[in-house]
C-alpha cells in the first residue's frame, strides 16, 4: 500500500467552500463516503453531499429555510430585496408568481427562433477565423442577450450591462465580502434598472420589465423589489446557463465520443444536457438555515445553523449513478439536482435547456472538432462553477473537407 495515501486518507476530510477548487469532485466524494454530515468548525458551517440527504432537505423548506439567505458571500445583496431564491413562503411565492407565467416550458419554447438567430449572429464573426473563446464569445453573451431581450433592455446597452455583470463576479480569493468594484457595478446597474423601470411606468412595453413594474402598480411588490427582482432575473439568467455551456465545452475535451454522438444526432441533445448538468453543475451548492434543532445521521444540527446543500456532490453519488464520474449521455435517465428541487426548483430551467440545446447544435455543427488554444480561466465565486475563458481553435467552415 502506498504510505502517502494512507497518511492522507487517515486524516479527516477538510472542505471549505471559500477555498477555490479547480476540481472539487474528489473532496465531495470523500465527504459523501466519510462525513455525510460534515461540519466545518472554523466557519461553523454544516455540509450535506449525499443525493438522498439533499433531496430530502430541499423538499422541506420549513426545516431547511431559505429566508435568511442561501449564499455564503455577499452575492444576494446584489439583488435584494426582490430576489426570491433567498425567501421562504409567502414572500417567495408572491415574488416568484410575478415571473412564473413567463418561464413556463410552453412560453419559453416560443423563443427558440430568437435564441437560434442570436446564437448564429454571435458565432458568425468567428466562422472563418478558426478560433473562438467559447466562454467569453458565446457561453456568456448568448444568455445575456436573451435575458436582456426578455427584460426589454436595448441591445445597444449589451456591452455596458455585460461589463457590470463581469464586475459583479469579481472576488478577492478567500474573502466573504465582495470587493468595492463589484458594489460599484451593482450600484450602476441598480440606477440603470430604476431608470428603465421609470420609463416603463410612463410608457409600458411588451417586456418583462413592464410586467414587473405592473406588479408594483397592482401592489404585489414594492418599488425596491422592482429593481431587485429585475437584477435577480438578469444575474441568475446569465451566470447559470453561461456555466452550463462553458463547463460542457471544456468537459467535451475529456469525453470526445460523447461530443461526437451529439454532433451526429441532435435528437440526443436534450438527454445529453441533463447528463452534462449532472456531471458539472453550474450552481454547485446553496445553503439553508435550520430554524430548530434537526437530527441528521444521528447528530443534532442546532437551531440557527447554516447548512450547505452541495447539489454537484449529490449529482456524483455512486449509490445513484454507476460510474458517476463519467459523462455518459446514454445512461439511464434519473433526476439530478442541478436545478434544485422542491419549491425553489429553478424557474429558468426551461430557458437554460433551450439555450444550451441551441448553442450545442449550432457550435457543434460549426466545429465538430476543436482543441484548446490558450489558458482556461475559471470564475471563482463560492457557489458558481463556470469559465471566464475557454479559447479554442477549429477548422474554419469553408476549409472543412
Amino acid at each position, binding site marked *: 500500500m502506498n504510505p502517502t495515501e494512507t497518511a492522507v486518507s487517515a486524516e479527516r476530510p477538510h472542505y471549505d467552500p471559500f477555498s477555490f477548487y479547480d476540481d472539487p469532485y474528489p473532496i465531495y466524494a470523500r465527504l459523501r463516503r466519510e462525513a455525510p454530515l460534515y461540519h466545518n468548525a472554523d466557519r461553523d458551517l454544516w455540509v450535506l453531499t449525499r443525493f438522498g440527504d439533499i433531496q430530502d432537505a430541499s423538499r422541506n423548506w420549513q426545516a431547511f429555510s431559505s429566508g435568511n439567505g442561501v449564499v455564503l458571500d455577499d452575492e444576494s445583496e446584489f439583488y435584494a430585496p426582490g430576489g426570491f431564491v433567498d425567501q421562504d413562503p409567502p414572500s417567495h411565492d408572491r415574488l416568484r408568481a410575478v415571473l412564473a407565467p413567463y418561464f413556463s*416550458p410552453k412560453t419559453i*419554447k416560443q423563443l427558440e427562433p430568437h435564441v437560434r438567430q442570436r446564437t448564429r449572429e454571435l458565432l458568425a464573426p468567428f466562422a472563418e477565423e478558426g478560433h473562438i473563446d467559447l466562454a467569453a464569445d458565446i457561453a456568456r453573451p448568448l444568455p445575456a442577450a436573451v435575458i436582456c431581450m426578455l427584460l426589454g433592455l436595448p441591445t445597444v446597452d449589451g456591452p455596458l450591462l455585460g461589463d457590470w455583470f463581469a464586475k459583479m463576479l469579481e472576488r478577492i480569493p478567500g474573502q466573504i465580502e465582495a470587493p468595492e468594484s463589484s458594489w460599484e457595478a451593482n450600484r450602476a446597474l441598480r440606477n440603470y434598472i430604476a431608470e428603465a423601470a421609470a420609463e416603463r411606468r410612463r410608457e409600458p412595453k411588451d417586456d418583462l420589465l413592464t410586467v414587473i413594474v405592473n406588479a408594483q402598480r397592482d401592489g404585489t411588490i414594492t418599488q425596491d423589489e422592482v429593481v431587485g427582482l429585475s437584477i435577480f432575473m438578469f444575474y441568475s439568467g446569465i451566470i447559470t446557463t453561461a456555466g452550463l455551456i462553458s463547463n460542457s465545452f471544456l468537459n467535451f475535451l475529456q469525453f470526445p465520443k460523447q461530443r461526437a454522438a451529439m454532433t451526429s444526432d441532435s435528437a440526443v441533445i436534450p438527454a445529453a444536457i441533463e447528463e452534462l448538468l449532472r456531471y458539472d453543475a453550474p450552481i454547485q451548492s446553496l445553503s439553508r438555515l435550520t430554524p430548530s434543532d434537526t437530527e441528521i445521521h444521528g447528530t443534532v444540527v442546532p437551531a440557527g445553523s447554516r447548512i450547505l446543500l452541495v447539489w454537484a456532490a449529490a449529482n456524483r453519488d455512486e449509490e445513484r449513478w454507476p460510474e458517476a464520474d463519467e459523462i455518459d449521455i446514454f445512461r439511464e435517465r434519473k433526476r439530478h439536482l442541478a436545478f434544485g428541487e422542491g419549491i425553489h*426548483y429553478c424557474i429558468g430551467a426551461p430557458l437554460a435547456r433551450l439555450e444550451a440545446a441551441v448553442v450545442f447544435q449550432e457550435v457543434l455543427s460549426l466545429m465538430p472538432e476543436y482543441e484548446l488554444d490558450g489558458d482556461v480561466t475559471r470564475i471563482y465565486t463560492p457557489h458558481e462553477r463556470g469559465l471566464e475563458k475557454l479559447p479554442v481553435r477549429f477548422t474554419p467552415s469553408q476549409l472543412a473537407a
Partner: protein
Amino acid sequence: MRIVVDPAVCQRHGLCSFFAPEVFNLRDDLELEYVAEPDLAYRDGVEEAAQACPTQAIQLHDEP
C-alpha cells in the same frame, strides 16, 4: 387515492413525470396528462411527485 392538479398553478416543469411516470405525463405539446384515480401501487411515486412539485400544484386526497 384521488389526484387534483391545479392547472392555474402548474407550470409544466414536469418533475412529477420523473417520480410517477405511470401517473403523470408531460406531453410534447407541454400539456400535463395524469391519471386522476391511479392504482394504489403508485402511491409512493405520487407522494414524491407532490412533494417535489416546484409550485405545489398537486393535491392528494384519500377516499373515505
